[in-house]
């Protein structure tokens, strides 16, 4: 399984570190970090990614806009997207799914949930 890349988009360093820590347990998965949607788009332009994990609430460009931009980009429209949501954000979650996100994870997140969801979408399970 050479060359699988994941992009983690999260403004909270704490959450980002936890997600990255979890993803690094998946063999041969390279993890790239982005602080927000704009940073994510910049990194998407310069690389090929097999999965994107993004928070919804972020400054500058939030997760919903990012999902829409990814789905309208011919190079990345097929990439699986996992969104991270909080309680009470049902509307955001539904919107993200309708925009093309493939799955979601609730906070508080657990690393095994992240691993299993990513493996499932990358068909590594």
């Amino acid at each position, binding site marked *: 399984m050479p060359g699988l890349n994941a992009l983690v988009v999260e403004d*909270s360093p704490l959450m980002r*570190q936890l997600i990255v820590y979890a993803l690094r347990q998946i063999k041969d998965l390279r993890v790239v970090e982005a602080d927000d949607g704009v940073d994510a788009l910049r990194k998407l332009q310069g690389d090929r990614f097999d999965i994107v994990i993004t928070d919804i609430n972020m400054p500058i460009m939030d997760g919903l806009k990012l999902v829409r931009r990814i789905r309208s980009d011919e190079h990345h429209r097929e990439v699986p997207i996992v969104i991270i949501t909080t309680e009470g954000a049902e509307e955001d979650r539904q919107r993200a799914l309708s925009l093309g996100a493939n799955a979601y994870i609730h*906070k*508080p997140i*657990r*690393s095994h949930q992240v691993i299993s969801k990513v493996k499932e979408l990358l068909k590594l399970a």
Partner: protein
Amino acid sequence: MAESESNPKGGGGEETDLLGRREDFIKTFFRKGAELTEELLEENERLRYKMVALEHELSALRSSNAGDGATAIRELSKRIQQLEEERSNLLKGFSAVEARSRDYEARFRQIEEENERLANLYVASDQLHSTLDLREVLQIILEIVLNFIGAKQFSIHVLDEETKRLFPVAAEGMAVADAPELPLDTAAVAAALRSGTPYLASEMSPSAPADGAPLAVIPLHLRGQAVGAVVIYRYLVQKKEISEVDHALFRLLAAHAATAILGARHATGAGERPLTRAAFNALLG
């Protein structure tokens, strides 16, 4: 015979010839009859012998078959018994494998839980000590409680060394101004600060108690001295229990959050002055 005797002379040659032929015929008839009878008797005898022989053969065959059947039944019974034993052994083996599988599964869950705990502790600890900026430290504590523990409404309090009350310095799910100042004799707070271990309400509910009592109080202390507390009023709806990971995070916060807060305060040069609400708020700007 009577006719030949009545015409011994006067019948002439024809009659004699006829009688002779008749006699020959009768003789032949009787001879052939005798021969046939003889043959029939012989055949009868032969068949009788044959029948006796067949009866013997049949009898022998019957007894032979009877013997083979019993042997076959014995063999089959033995085989059935062997198969039953094999089945029993297989079932025992299957049960053992199943039990081992359950053990592995339980062990896997334990390892997963342990890994989860270590990941959360490592990241939380790493982040707590990654800055000496007081605002950042408070933000990191908020994020740990919100994102790792899964609290929805809570506040961080620091102990005013002069008034001996816990004043709020940061909050989530409520405005800091709305978070109450807590006297040290508040039941839950007193219990947590006195014991140095978190106070946890007996009921795990996502809704805040009607009386405003906290669901959890995590004491923040340094070298046995109370520095503050994290007070949780509500959990996220999806949080169903306080797990081992949560307990480990409570312990980590109890020991490290106070160090991080006081370290950041010292870094501003305010460490020598008494820690009061006014002084602390001044540091936050």
